[in-house]
């Protein structure tokens, strides 16, 4: 039973690598799911028993990077309670990274970016959809898939300008009267978030 398991594993791995060799001759290979060093040393010590599977055998290998840059970017925008965009094919997204607005096109280098509160704009042809993100991360993978995760993401028209102005004024006052480090930090965060909300509503 163990013997059949390892044979099907090897067949599956070699079949996928053969398929890869036919389609993408110059792209980065998909990483295989077996641990070749371990298997070879096991076979040297113990050629009569099948090697056990290591954790890397259970992991899905990294998807191959295509040789030609794809024409569309696949975007996933996920929140803890909802997936707003799920494998949506778009032309470009602009994410609010802490280092500034970052545009992601198909073929973008693999990146991990921490996000600040700000606007995510999704460009598809002539349509632009904007979401206000509370903070989160953006992972761009080498195969032109972008995963954007945030705790809250709302379309800009769901924001109330009066509450935003009031919040901004409140936190500016709190910063002036703050004494401990924690109070100052909370006031500063409040100011940052409300200024970003303000800019989103007016910009």
């Amino acid at each position: 039973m163990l013997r059949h398991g390892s044979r099907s594993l090897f067949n599956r791995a070699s079949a996928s690598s053969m398929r890869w060799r036919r389609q993408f001759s110059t792209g980065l290979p998909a990483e295989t799911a077996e641990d070749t060093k371990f298997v070879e040393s096991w076979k040297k010590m113990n050629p009569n028993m099948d090697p056990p599977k290591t954790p890397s055998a259970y992991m899905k290998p990294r998807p191959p990077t295509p040789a030609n840059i794809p024409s569309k970017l696949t975007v996933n925008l996920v929140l803890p309670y909802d997936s707003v965009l799920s494998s949506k094919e778009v032309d470009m997204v602009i994410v609010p990274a802490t280092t500034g607005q970052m545009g992601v096109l198909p073929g973008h280098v693999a990146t991990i970016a921490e996000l600040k509160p700000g606007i995510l704009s999704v460009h598809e042809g002539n349509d632009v959809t904007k979401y206000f993100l509370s903070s989160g991360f953006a992972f761009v993978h080498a195969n032109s898939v972008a995963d954007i995760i945030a705790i809250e993401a709302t379309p800009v028209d769901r924001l109330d300008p009066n509450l935003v102005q009031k919040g901004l004024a409140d936190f500016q006052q709190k910063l002036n009267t703050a004494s401990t480090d924690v109070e100052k930090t909370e006031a500063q965060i409040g100011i940052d978030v409300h200024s970003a909300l303000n800019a989103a509503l007016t910009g």
Partner: protein
Amino acid sequence: MSSSAAQPFWRAAGMTYVTYSNLCASLVRQCLKEPYRSEALSREKVHFNVSKWVDGKPEKPTIRTDTPE
């Protein structure tokens, strides 16, 4: 190394990223229009109880809840 890497102001003040992120999300939720605001604030409600264990026995639990009993 003489100094550690530059830290964001909230980490320098002792706050973790999770706390910071949840705080930002909570502030955004409070700026939404109705009816989205009430839906969003219902997402913030928590209900749990915590009990410390001393000498192998649990002490009286403290209940932290936003749902009315």
